[in-house]
């Protein structure tokens, strides 16, 4: 009876985990909702000389769609204090000039590691207006707690 019960328990609990995997797997591979995993690389010591990072900033690429080319460094973001209209779909293209940083906008799913030598991308549609805090969430030095900026969605 104990063996039977254990078999039932393992089947149910593993079944729950399988259901989780199916949900996140479907979202990732069929709906493109997987975590930021960009694979392009760049020379970390020549970031500002190589496109697109030779011209960081906010660029409109389509109707209410923007690309933000951003360089992260200890302890700031370039560009900073970004402004976009409400409903804007924003694609962040980022790299680091020095150490590993994190790019997080609390209250959203924007959370990506930005590592020197690597270009990372993440996208988000800002449906709600407001002033969003942008922070580095990976320790990057003595001024890490000051590394922040804002995104204002009007």
């Amino acid at each position, binding site marked *: 009876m*104990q063996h039977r*019960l*254990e078999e039932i*328990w*393992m089947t149910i*609990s*593993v079944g729950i*985990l399988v259901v*989780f*995997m199916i949900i*996140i*797997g479907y*979202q*990732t*591979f069929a709906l493109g*909702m*997987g*975590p*930021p*995993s*960009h*694979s392009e*690389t*760049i*020379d*970390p*010591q020549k970031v500002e000389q190589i496109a697109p990072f030779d011209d960081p900033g906010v660029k409109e690429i389509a109707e209410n769609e923007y690309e933000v080319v951003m360089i992260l460094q200890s302890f700031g973001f370039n560009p900073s204090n970004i402004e976009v209209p409400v409903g804007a779909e924003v694609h962040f293209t980022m790299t680091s000039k*020095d*150490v*590993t940083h*994190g790019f*997080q*906008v*609390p*209250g959203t*799913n*924007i*959370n*990506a*590691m*930005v*590592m*020197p*030598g*690597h270009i990372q991308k993440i996208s988000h549609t800002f449906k709600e207006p407001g*002033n*969003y*805090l942008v*922070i580095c*969430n*990976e*320790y*990057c*030095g*003595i*001024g*890490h*707690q000051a590394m*922040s900026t*804002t995104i204002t969605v009007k």
Partner: protein
Amino acid sequence: MEQSLRETIHENPKKILGVNSQDAKVSLSYLTVAFVSLLIGGILGLVQGLERAGLIQLPSWLNYYQVLTAHGLLLLVVFTATFSIGYLYANLSHALGGLLPKVRKLAWTGFVLMIIGVAMVVTMIVLNEASVLYTFYPPLAAHPIFYIGLVFVVLGIWACCFGVFINYRHWRKNHPGEVTPILAFFTMGVFVLWFFASLGVTIEVFTLIPWSMGLVETTNVMVARTLFWWFGHTLVNIWYLVAISAWYVFVPRIIGGRHFSDKLIRLVVILVVILNIPGGFHHQIIDPAISQSIKFLHVFMSLSIAVPSLMTAFAMFVVFERTGRRLGGKGLLGWLKKLPWGDVRFLAPMIAMISFIFGGAGGIVNTSNQLNQVIHNTMWVVGHFHITVGVSVVLTFFGICYWLIPHLSKRKLTPKMNKIGIIQTLIWTVGMIIMSGSMHIVGLLGDPRRTSDTTYGGHEAAASWVPFEMLFAVGATLLLIGVIIQVYAVFNMMFFAPKGNTEYPVAEPEDDETPTPMWTERWGLWIVLLLMVVAMAYVVPIVDMLLNAPPGSPPIRTW
């Protein structure tokens, strides 16, 4: 001498006189270092909690990041390793009838190597030459002595690994066809996993030493990070394996019951050993340069590690219910009341087990691919690991102290010390619930970890985090009180408790237990499977990172 010991082992294995005094000295030395580290690490933890709550401001010569680096290393590396070695070597000595002299020598060698290593590492941290945190991600570059110190610590652990392998091999040669005593089986599992896990970080550290010295210009940042997490992830399951050895083998005895199916316990150990290393990428789910497919493979491997834990949950409840009912418990949950809640040797590991329900559930969330974006590098993660290592593992360790230390010191656990243990356990539990609970919630609101201050110039999002951060300080204060009581208890039991004999509470099997099959002993096979699974999970991404590597990063110091 050896002959009569062998006879004793064959005829009356349960009545072995526990750990002999030479072996006991080894364990007590490791345990002493463990609790000194806990005290210092604990004080640093409160300091952090107070600064995070904005109640104090650390001076520039001992900044938050130095404190954080030390807190992490002292607790996650030094305390856990030295406690585990002290405990496991005692288990090995008890189970195999004493350590071989050369194995004891290895344990002492390991001890010295680790002390030297820790001294080097801590000195660099205090001098602000290594404010790189426990993960020391390059291109953050510490002083070379920091990395060399880490090498010494790893070599110390390896000395202990080889000691276990040598003693085990010797036992197997002298006991052909016999099933390994369960405590020795667990010990083998831990040290096998420890050895293979530490290969990753050792390779990483060896590449960082010349880089930090300026002999090599650049380093591959992604490969370094990946090699770290090969180790860092597995380490937590090493602790888990140590903790469950107590849950499976000692707790049933302490409650007056029998242990769960021996075969199934060994299966759990084997699964934990084989399946573990390939989960490393759940710490790197939002990294660039790793494909979605490989990440998902690691998600799958990480979820598979839940399987032995789910088995363990079932096994423990069965043992508790069976024992409780035999003691007269009636109805659906009457068996719970029959368990010895007033015995700290049960209360502490029991709370540890209950906490793992929440810790493990949190872990399943963390590894769920894109769900990781909700919590990565937020205080949720800090709450998670304080519940898992801080309660499930550490409270088990604390509970073990109350019989292991009297046993090793040839003293007794007095009712007064038991009461102190109960109070300590309750303070610890309340402290952790407050601190870890608030950390989980505020993490969901986006409050980041590993940072000295989160006011961000008064931004409204950051303002919503402040009340929770006050709770960090409340919890941390309770926890330091708990640490102090525990350290007091440990050294009291070591040196001042009344003399006497404390038994090693090894549980007996059920009367109708079927004999354990010998296939569980095939360590060679488990190691091969371990390596195959590691290769499956790591070869492709690491080769990819090497072949498609960007120009590397030079050493950078931002503190």
